[in-house]
C-alpha cells in the first residue's frame, strides 16, 4: 500500500514537472515578456535593465528552476493586465469556482446515481426509458445552450432565479467568500450548477446503468439470489459495490473537468470564478495568469487521480493484498 502510494506520488510529480515545463515555455517564449510589461516609450537600455533584473538573461535551466521554486511557493509572478500578483487574483476567484463545481458535482452524483441504479435494475420499465431519453438530451446539448435555455425559462419568463452573478456573499476568514449562507447566494447557485452538472449527471447515470446491467448477469449475483438473500442486499451490497470501481474513475476525472472547465458556464452566467478570469487573460495575452491556470488545472487532475487510485484500494481487496 505504502509502496504503491509512493510510486503514484513519484509519477504525479513527474507529470507536474512536465506541465511546469510547458507553462514555463509558454511564459518565456510566447512573445517577449518585456514587451508585454513596458510601454512603447521605454528605451532599449531600460528594457535591458529590466531583463537583467527579472533574470531573463540567465541560462534557461536556471530560469526553469527558479520558475518551479516560485510556483511551489504559489508565486506565479505579476499579471500584465491587473498589475497584481497572480496568486492574489486566483485566491479571490477560487472560492466562487470551487463552490460552483462542488454544488454541480453533488447534483450530478445525488441525482445520477439513484437514476442509474433504477434504470439498471428495471431495464424495461417506462421510467427507465424516460431517464435514458432525458439523458440523451443532457449528453447531446452543448453547455452554453442549456445555460441560455435555463436563463430564458427561469430568469426571463418565470423570473424565479437570477440570471447572473453570485448574489450576496459572506466573507469567511481572510479571503474565502461564500454564497452558501445567503438566500440570494443559494438561488444564484442553482442555474449555473445545474447547467454545469447536467452532462456529468447523465454520464454517471448511463455508466452506472451499464455497469449494473453487467454485474447483474454475473454468477455471484445469481448465487446471491439462489441463497435467498433479499433484493436490498443483492442490489446494494453485492451489485452496487461491484459497479463502483469504473464509476469512481470516471467521476474523479469528471470532477477535475468540472473545476477546470467551468469556463463556459461561468461566462454564460457571468460567474466571477477562475474560468472567467482565464478567458479574459487569453483575450489580453496575460501569460502569467494563463500559465498559473495551466499548472492549477494539472494539479487538480493529478491530485484527484491520486485520490482515486487510493480509493481503489479501499474498494477492491484484490488490489489490497498480495495473491497467495
Amino acid at each position, binding site marked *: 500500500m505504502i509502496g504503491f502510494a509512493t510510486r503514484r506520488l513519484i509519477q504525479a510529480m513527474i507529470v507536474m514537472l512536465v506541465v511546469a515545463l510547458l507553462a514555463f515555455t509558454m511564459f518565456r517564449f510566447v512573445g517577449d515578456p518585456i514587451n508585454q510589461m513596458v510601454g512603447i516609450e521605454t528605451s532599449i537600455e531600460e528594457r535591458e535593465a529590466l531583463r537583467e533584473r527579472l533574470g531573463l538573461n540567465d541560462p534557461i535551466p536556471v530560469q526553469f528552476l527558479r520558475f518551479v521554486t516560485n510556483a511551489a511557493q504559489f508565486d506565479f509572478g505579476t499579471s500584465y493586465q491587473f498589475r497584481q500578483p497572480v496568486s492574489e487574483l486566483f485566491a479571490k476567484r477560487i472560492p466562487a469556482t470551487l463552490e460552483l463545481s462542488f454544488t454541480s458535482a453533488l447534483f450530478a452524483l445525488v441525482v445520477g446515481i439513484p437514476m442509474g441504479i433504477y434504470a439498471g435494475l428495471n431495464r424495461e420499465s417506462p421510467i427507465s426509458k424516460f431517464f435514458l431519453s432525458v439523458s440523451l438530451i443532457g449528453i447531446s446539448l452543448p453547455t452554453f445552450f442549456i445555460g441560455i435555455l435555463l436563463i430564458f425559462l427561469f430568469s426571463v419568463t418565470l423570473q424565479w432565479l437570477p440570471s447572473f452573478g453570485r448574489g450576496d456573499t459572506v466573507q469567511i476568514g481572510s479571503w474565502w467568500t461564500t454564497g452558501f449562507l445567503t438566500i440570494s447566494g443559494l438561488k444564484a447557485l442553482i442555474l449555473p450548477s445545474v447547467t454545469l452538472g447536467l452532462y456529468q449527471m447523465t454520464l454517471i447515470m448511463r455508466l452506472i446503468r451499464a455497469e449494473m446491467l453487467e454485474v447483474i448477469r*454475473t*454468477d*455471484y449475483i*445469481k*448465487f*446471491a*439470489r*439462489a*441463497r*435467498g*438473500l*433479499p433484493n436490498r*442486499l443483492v442490489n446494494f*451490497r*453485492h451489485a452496487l*459495490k*461491484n459497479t463502483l470501481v469504473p464509476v469512481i474513475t470516471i467521476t474523479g476525472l469528471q470532477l477535475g473537468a468540472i473545476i477546470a472547465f467551468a469556463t463556459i458556464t461561468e461566462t454564460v452566467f457571468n460567474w466571477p470564478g477562475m474560468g472567467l478570469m482565464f478567458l479574459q487573460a487569453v483575450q489580453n495575452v496575460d501569460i502569467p495568469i494563463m500559465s498559473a491556470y495551466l499548472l492549477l488545472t494539472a494539479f487538480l487532475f493529478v491530485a484527484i487521480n491520486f485520490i482515486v487510485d487510493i480509493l481503489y484500494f479501499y*474498494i*477492491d*481487496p*484484490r488490489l489490497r*493484498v498480495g*495473491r*497467495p
Partner: protein
Amino acid sequence: MNVLDIKDLTVEFPSRKSVFVAVDDVDMSVEAGKVLGVVGESGAGKSTVGNAVIGLLQEPGHIAGGEIFLHGKRIDNLSYKEKRLLRGRKIGMIFQDPLTSLDPLQTVESQLVETIRTHLPLSAKDAQKRAVELIDSVGIPDPEERIKQYPHQFSGGMRQRVVIALALCAEPELVIADEPTTALDVSIQAQILELMKKLCEERNVAMLVITHDMGVIADITDHVAVMYHGDLVEYGETTQVLGAPKHPYTQSLISAVPRPDVKVDRFPVVNYIEKAGTPQKQIDISTHWLGKSRDYEQVAGPLVQIRDLDMRFEVRGSIFPSQRKYFQAVKKVSFDIEQGETFGVVGESGSGKSTIARLITGLYHPTGGSILFGKTELTSLTNRKDVLAMRRQMQMIFQDPFSSLNARMRVRDIIAEPIKFHKLASSNAEVRQIVDDLLDHVGLGAQSGQKFPHEFSGGQRQRISIARALATRPRFLICDEPTSALDVSIQAQILNLLKDLQEELGLTMLFISHDLAVIRQMCNRIGVMRNGELCEVSDCDELFEHPKHPYTRELLDLMPSLELLSRANLETA
C-alpha cells in the same frame, strides 16, 4: 417420503416467432440422503430443471405445466417472495464456476453471515460462530483465520468448498448442484465429490446433481435421469441405467464416453444425434493441393526434440534484479516427438502444458533450453522469413471454439487467410477452390464458407479451426485441449476427424489434455506434467498399465471409475 417430487414439468421459453420447449413433461423425485443425477448434453434442459425447482428461471422462461413438490408441499405456484424464503432456507444451490460465484469484494465471513442471518434468527456473534463451524465442516483448514479472507485468496477447489458451505448455511433439505466439478481439476473433483456425498449422508440432505459427465454420475449418484432435447429419455437406478441402458440415446451417449481402460481404434460415434457432420465429398489427398508438394526437408530422427526447456514469467517487476519475482512455468523439460506420432501431454491446470505448446509455436520465447524442429533450432531463429517458414509447418488448434475464430470474418475468409498470407496458392480462384475442398473435407460442406462463425455450434466451429490449421499444409499440429469445451458425442466426432487427418496427411501431433481417457485413445506416447516438470514419459499402454511415477499413479487412481458403464453390443462406427 420424497423430498423433491417433480411431476409433468414443462418449461417454455417464448420468443418472438415461436415457443421453445426447454423441458417437456418431465417426472423425477429425490429421497432424503440420496443423490439424483440429471445427465445430458448441452441444450438438453437439465439446468433448466434445476432453475425451475429453485425458482430462478431466466426471463422469459416460465413453468408452462406440471407441479413441483417439496416435502409434499407444492412450490411451483408460490409468489416471488415466498419462493425467495425457500431459497437458501429449504433449497441450496451450488454453481459451476467457483471462481465467479463469490462476490470478490466481500470477505467469506460477511457472505456467510449475511446468508445465515437472512434465514435464521441468530445474533451477529452466533452467526459468526456458525460460519466458522460451516467452513470447518467443508474441510477448510484454519477456519478462524481463513474466514476473514476474500475469495481471491482461495484456490479454485477451496472456493468451491466455500460455495458448498454457503449452500448449506441454513440446513436446506435439498441441494441442487449444477455442474459442481466441471471447472475443477481431477484431483480436486474427487475431493469435492467425496465431500458432497459425505455431507449429503451426514445431514440427510437430498441432492440433485446436474452434470454432463458420466464419471460424476457413476461416482456419486443413486438414481439417474437422462435428458435429451428437453425430454426425459431414461430414468432409474444408476447401476441399472449405466449398466443396461434401454433407450438408444443412453446407449449411444455411454458408448461415446472415452474409455480409460482399453484403447480402441476409433471413437464410437453417437448415431442417435443428428448433425453428425454433413455427408462430405471426399478429396483425394494424393492428387489434391492439400497433399501435394509437402516439400519439407526430410529428417531421420524425431521431428521435435526438446532439451532442458525452461520458462519463467516475471510476477513482480522491479528495477532491482533482487526484488524481481518469477514464476517458473516450465522446468528443465526434455522430450522427443517422433514423426507421425501423437504425443500426449497430460496434467492439471497450472502444470505448464499449454506453456509448452506456446513455446514450440514461438508465442513465448523460452528463458532457457532448446527446441529442435527438424534440423532447425527454433530458439535461435531471428530472421523473420525463417520464422514464418517454421510457423507454416506448425499449426495450433485451441480449446475455446468460441473465442478462437474472428466473429467479424466469414468462415471462407478465415480459412483463406493463412493460404494468402503464406502465398501458397497462385490465384484467388485456386484459394477459393482449396477453401471449399477443406470445408468439405472436415465435414462442413463448401456452402458453409459464406456464413459467419456465430452461425455454427461448438463442434462445427472446432471443425473450422481444424480446416484453418490445415490451410498452411502443416506437418506438425498442436492441439491444446481441443475437445474440453465440447459434449461427449461431439468430442468423439472431432477426435475421429483428427485421427483420420493424421493418417491421411502423415501429421505429427502434440495433444494436450487434462482428460486421461481422451489421452489414452489419441496418443502413442504420453508425458505427465506437474508444476512445470515432466514426471514421466512412456508409451500409452505402458503408462496406464504400469505407471512408474507416484504422481501418475495418483492421477490414474483419481479417474472416475467407469466400470459401471455398459460397453456391450455397441458398435464402433
